[in-house]
């Protein structure tokens, strides 16, 4: 009894720990094991292939496209949301009238799933239904926006929709951080003769470092996980020009009955995630000390 009383705090963690241990770590381990088998439609543990599935994934043309796209998408998506989010945050921080309304407008896409907005986005991007059609109908005959139909450009459409959804969240992060900056520093810089842009560049933006870190990690993991986005917008097309690791994994596991290959690609995504996340976790943990 005394033991339990003394360990009560740790014991209260136990349910969560058990749940996460099983549903995160147990399942990751299982995925890794499946990636070593010859599982097709369902998990099977009667034929082992070692790391052959990894070789098969890496030699698959779709994976090649997926990795290439991920590099483009990841960079532009993270960069884009950071620039847009920071820009909007700085502008909103200029004592703007109707700030609340604008903020809500920037933030609301976070509330929506791509199941809700997918069709609208497809249409907006489509040259004969969306923006191009609209602008041409209204008289701007030379307006052209048909990236979604071009294999080389379609991935940028995915970036645009992704930025639309997540920029508001990044904006909120930065705005929160901006409001938390000690105003004395800014006053001091002003006394020292710094101009508006110089203050932002030299004083404020460096002070947002923690917010940058958080934003990069959040956006980074979203970019690795983004699946709904592609499915709603292009279904991986044209052809498989907008394939991403996440769509590759889903497609192979569930549509193509190549579960072992899907698992292998999942494990590689997890490795990528770990590389990105662990330094962040490390800093999170030091933060609390």
């Amino acid at each position, binding site marked *: 009894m005394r033991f339990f009383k003394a360990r009560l705090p740790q014991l209260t963690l136990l349910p969560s720990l058990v749940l996460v241990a099983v549903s995160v770590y147990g399942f990751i381990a299982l995925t890794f094991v499946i990636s070593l088998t010859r599982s097709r*439609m369902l998990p099977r543990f009667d034929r082992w292939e070692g790391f052959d599935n990894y070789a098969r994934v890496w030699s698959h*043309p*779709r994976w090649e496209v997926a990795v290439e796209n991920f590099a483009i998408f990841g960079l532009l998506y993270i960069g884009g949301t950071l620039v847009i989010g920071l820009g909007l945050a700085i502008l909103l921080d200029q004592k703007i009238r109707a700030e609340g309304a604008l903020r809500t407008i920037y933030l609301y896409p976070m509330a929506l799933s791509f199941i809700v907005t997918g069709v609208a986005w497809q249409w907006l991007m489509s040259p004969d239904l969306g923006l191009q059609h609209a602008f041409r109908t209204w008289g701007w005959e030379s307006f052209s926006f048909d990236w979604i139909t071009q294999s080389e450009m379609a991935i940028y459409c995915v970036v645009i929709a992704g930025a639309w959804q997540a920029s508001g969240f990044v904006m909120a992060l930065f705005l929160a951080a901006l409001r938390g900056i000690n105003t004395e520093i800014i006053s001091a810089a002003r006394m020292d003769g710094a101009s508006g842009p110089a203050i932002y560049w030299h004083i404020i933006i460096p002070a947002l470092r923690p917010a940058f870190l958080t934003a990069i990690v959040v956006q980074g993991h979203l970019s690795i996980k983004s699946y709904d986005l592609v499915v709603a917008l292009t279904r991986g097309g*044209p*052809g498989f020009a907008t394939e991403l690791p996440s769509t590759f994994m889903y497609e192979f596991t569930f*549509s*193509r009955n190549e579960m072992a290959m899907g698992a292998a690609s999942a494990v590689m995504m997890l490795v990528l995630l770990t590389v990105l996340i662990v330094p962040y976790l490390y800093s999170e943990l030091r933060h609390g000390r």
Partner: protein
Amino acid sequence: MTKYLTRGVGALLSMTALSAPALADEVEVMHWWTSGGEAAAIAVLQEDLQARGTGWVDMAIAGGGGDAAMTALRARVVAGNPPTAAQMLGMTVRDWADEGFLGNLNAVAEAEGWNDVVPPAVQAFGTHDGEWVAAPVNIHRPHWVWANAGIFEELGLSMPTTWDEFFAAADAIEAAGHVGVAMGGQAWQEATIWEAIVLSVSPALYEAAIINADMDALGSEGIVESFEIFRRVLGYADPGYAGRDWNLATAMVINGEAGMQIMGDWAKGEVINAGLTPGEQVLCAVVPGTDGAFLFNTDFFAMFDVGEDAQAAQRNMASAAMSVSFQETFNLAKGSIPARTDVPSANFDVCGQTSMADLVEATEAGTLFGSLAHGHGQPASVQAAYLDVVTQFANSDMTPEAAAEALVASVGGAL
């Protein structure tokens, strides 16, 4: 400790939150027919069953042409909680039967004589080791050309029966300021056109290169030719076709924006929905060079191996799904033709009647094949290997020769 806790909470929730397992006189059916004509069609079956005293628990999950439903189905089966029946395409029936999850319908099938009325090529998917495991409800034919009758009349065109006529017609349509061929831009839509072209090159080529995945046939001149024709067809599409849904392409034909579309017989639904009659305002003909041959895809209700107490309801459902009256009503709503060959054709439209006649003909001639694009040509992994190349070809400037080579490599790698 935690397990009991979660179990306790779970039990509590499931009590308060109204989840009842399928009762003995109910069937739980997983499918992806959720809207429009499909939903209306499935409602017919539900009503039919209700009349027989069997309840219907609906587990529809739409999306990705059944992909989402198949994913959810896998979760259900892995959880040890399969539905009574699930809609499946032919190859998927085979996969699940191979895994040993499907039940045996022989009792019903024998009593009702399914073997005599279902074409053998369809039977091949509905049975496993000589036992019926799935009830086929329809036969779709994916290789149709749909055309705007107004444009054709205006330009004095008739439905093409050869590729030369097809291209001549397309040229004329383009010259008149319309889109020659309305296209949708998804891999399955592209494959629907390509497989029809392969069939038009020769049914024997289709059989060798697609059904048998013969490497020599895949690298043959005939396949190169099919890609050449495909390239020319693609040339008549408007530039914005990528990613377009098939029904929007159909709408282009209906509105007179485009002259023709190559699409399966489900396109009729859009025509009817627009208040028009297939065969009149929107003309239909099989893809040039494919008359006498027949590609099909069939929706099955695969029956899972359920407990004794649920089997009566399950048999009821199989029987209802295979009844002549249901197959007629259902397929009239769906645009397809019955899987039974003994359903009267009188109520079907012109296009449907053509299909029904061709089906019998093709069965006799041995030119009835499963459609690759629609899950009846190859297992999922191999099918995807074909589709990868076809869609890549359609969305790049790959040469027909290179496409044939890529096909050999891709399919060879997936086998």
